[in-house]
């Protein structure tokens, strides 16, 4: 069996190669998987940081969009990749805290990944169409009681889906799943369009996705989930409304690798991210889109995601939103 011999020899060569590579990682380009489509919030965020990050890494970063199933396809690709630090994932609130909380059949859990950083926080905002007679959260809740209110999302198990239910629940709506109808759409752009053309009453999504519609007077913000007001959004914060629990409802983007990447690799990423996030052009272009740049250390990132996951998981269990099929 020539082939067997050949592969045995090669396996040894590769073994040697990996042993050597821990010290001088990275010695070749790193594949960065973006689990969402081109042009989406994750994609733009990832491609914006790729520029300064590439300089910090000293190797080129190969960006690969692997889309499908709300981020699951790309996440699994990284979960199954070799844990050598040459395949990393841009993880997002949808793929790594909402999806694991909601979907029983998801082919991965949070334990399959090791987070090296979370670098961007994006507040959520709720909004209605500008001509709507709903002017505040109180109006919205009153309307829900009357019935016929619906909210759109980018799909079942997306951050938007959970956000809509969580906001209604926090504002004291009994049985929010049946009091308001969830109308899932395909993608975040379609979710906003659904509110614009009257298919749905309201939606809660990343402020960056709404910014231009608010600025153009097409949509009316009702609230933002942060403590501090968000520039351009003339709406009360969750703190103003006395709903501190909603502070957990923020979007984020981070970088993760398979669970067994080495400590050296994680540490290197910590250094690189600190360097990359200092880049002024990066910070200004991200902030122009309503994001807050806040580079977390690997430990902080893990704690942050775990806490958000637990909050979401508790809510999902309470409302019976878990998808078993």
């Amino acid at each position, binding site marked *: 069996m020539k082939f067997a011999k050949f592969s045995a020899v090669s396996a040894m060569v590769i073994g040697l190669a990996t042993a050597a590579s821990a010290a001088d990682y990275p010695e070749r380009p790193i594949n960065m998987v973006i689990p969402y489509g081109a*042009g*989406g919030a994750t994609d733009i965020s990832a491609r914006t940081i790729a520029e300064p990050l590439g300089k910090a890494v000293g190797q080129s970063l190969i960006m690969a969009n692997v889309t499908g199933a709300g981020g699951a396809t790309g996440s*699994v690709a990284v979960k199954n990749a070799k844990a050598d630090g040459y395949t990393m994932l841009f993880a997002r609130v949808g793929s790594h805290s909402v999806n694991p909380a909601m979907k029983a059949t998801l082919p991965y859990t949070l334990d399959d990944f090791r987070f090296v950083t979370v670098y961007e926080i994006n507040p959520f905002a709720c909004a209605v169409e500008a001509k709507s007679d709903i002017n505040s959260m109180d109006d919205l809740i009153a309307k829900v009681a009357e019935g016929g209110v619906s909210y759109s999302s980018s799909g079942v198990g997306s951050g938007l889906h959970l956000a809509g239910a969580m906001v209604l629940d926090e504002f004291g709506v009994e049985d929010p799943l049946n009091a308001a109808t969830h109308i899932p*759409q395909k993608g975040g752009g379609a979710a906003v369009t659904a509110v614009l053309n009257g298919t749905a009453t309201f939606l809660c999504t990343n402020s960056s996705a709404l910014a231009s519609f608010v600025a153009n007077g097409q949509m009316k913000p009702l609230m933002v989930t942060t403590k501090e007001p968000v520039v351009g959004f003339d709406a009360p914060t969750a703190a103003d409304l006395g709903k501190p629990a909603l502070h957990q409802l923020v979007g984020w983007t981070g970088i993760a690798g398979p669970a067994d990447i080495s400590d050296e690799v994680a540490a290197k990423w910590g250094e690189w991210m600190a360097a990359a996030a200092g880049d002024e052009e990066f910070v200004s272009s991200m902030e122009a889109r309503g994001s807050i740049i806040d580079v977390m250390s690997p430990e902080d990132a893990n704690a942050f995601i775990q806490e958000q996951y637990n909050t979401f998981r508790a809510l999902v269990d309470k409302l019976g939103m878990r998808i078993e099929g």
Partner: protein
Amino acid sequence: MSLMDSILAGLSLVGNFEAFFALFAGVAIGTIAGAIPGMSATMAVALTLPFTFSMQPIIAILLLLGVYKGGIFGGSIPAILIKTPGTPASSATVLDGYPLAEKGQAGKALGMALWASCTADLISNLALILFAGWLASFALNFGPPEFFTLILFSLTIIAGVSGASLLRGALSAMLGLLLATVGLDLVYGTNRFTFGDPSMMGGLNFIAVLIGLFAIPEVLAMVWDPKPHKGQTRGLGDDKVTFAEYRRCFKSIVRGSFIGVFLGSIPGIGAAPSAFLSYSEARRKSPNRDNFGKGELEGVAASEAGNNGVAGATLIPLLALGVPGDVITAIIIGAFMVHGLQPGPMMFILNVDIIYGLFIGLIVSSVFLFFIGSVAIRGFKYVADIPRGVLFPGVLVLCVYGVFAVNNNIFDVGVMFVMGWVGFVMLRNDIPAAPFLIAFILGPLLEDNFRQAMLMSGSSPAILFRGPITWFFWGLTVLTVIAIIRAGIRATRTLKRRA
């Protein structure tokens, strides 16, 4: 500010070498990328995006628009030459383009594709400039019920591309609809035919199915019977489209352009259905309809007019509402935002110079497309001279690379191979592949919009009849179905009389 002032402001913004160079480079990049199967126009735009971060906003956007327009045309080159649509939008072009190439008239088909593309592009751009506001507010009337009826009507296209037997076409469409159910359910998020495989959860990749269905069966047919083609080359043939031919197809081109403008201005449909609808309308109206599918120049013209007619019009919802019409415009919206511009009604007031700058750039891009397209045709014509014994293995390898590149997923290559066998079996049994493809595109749209409408109304079917738009499409659907049935009965009678 008067119209003249706006135009002058726009001109001052784009009236420089850089802007025109960006546009020119964009069209060239797009044409080449579109011509490579698997490198869709979407990918080309996505790849260009990071390079535009450091440019001036108007130059960045012109570059991206150039790539977009070039990409949509470029896709027709491999569709005609090797039966492998470079982009989904050009899959309708395959139907008549490839038979023309088989007859040794590839040059003519490519030439007509170019003329039709440029004409449609121009009409689409003019529609954008003149009717943006009006079409955008019209598009906002399209909720799930309106969509549902529009898609239902579009499914009648299947009759137009079924070839000899309507029933076999319908069966092919059913297979396409069934295959499109693979993936996660829209409303409940549960698994449908995924077998727990994360790659199946996202549904089958559209481009993998497309290339598998069209290109791979050709390779298999060659493996099945290598003899008749042995060592043969086809040659490009006469590559001039005469003015008489252009005039003959002009009506179809204009009709296709307007179909493109209409479908393009409604967010969420895209260029491929538009190309098929334009094709089937052209066939219905044409005196030589029997020749459609066997290498009819008018079919190529109609398909290309249909898909390029979308290109300018998708900017209508983008600029007037800030809503992306398809994936490509979603990326372009990203580019606007990177530069701190917020597309939407306010942009016509705040950044009127940019809007008119874009308009001027778009008009110029049609001209660039024509020149770059002519050069590209001359460059790619050598493909037709490659002996088949070398060409077909090359096509196979090219498809593998291309399909992998779409989503960086080896699974998609497997999907392509399996669909290749399905396509081969269909080819051997005279089951047409085009209805399969149309159904595969439209099926999820039909189901999703139906269910969204039902969610809106609390499961009352009355919502499917709300407003004049739904009535209009219901009416069209009924009329078309009656026409199809009558044509079917007539065809059976003539057959019987002959027998």
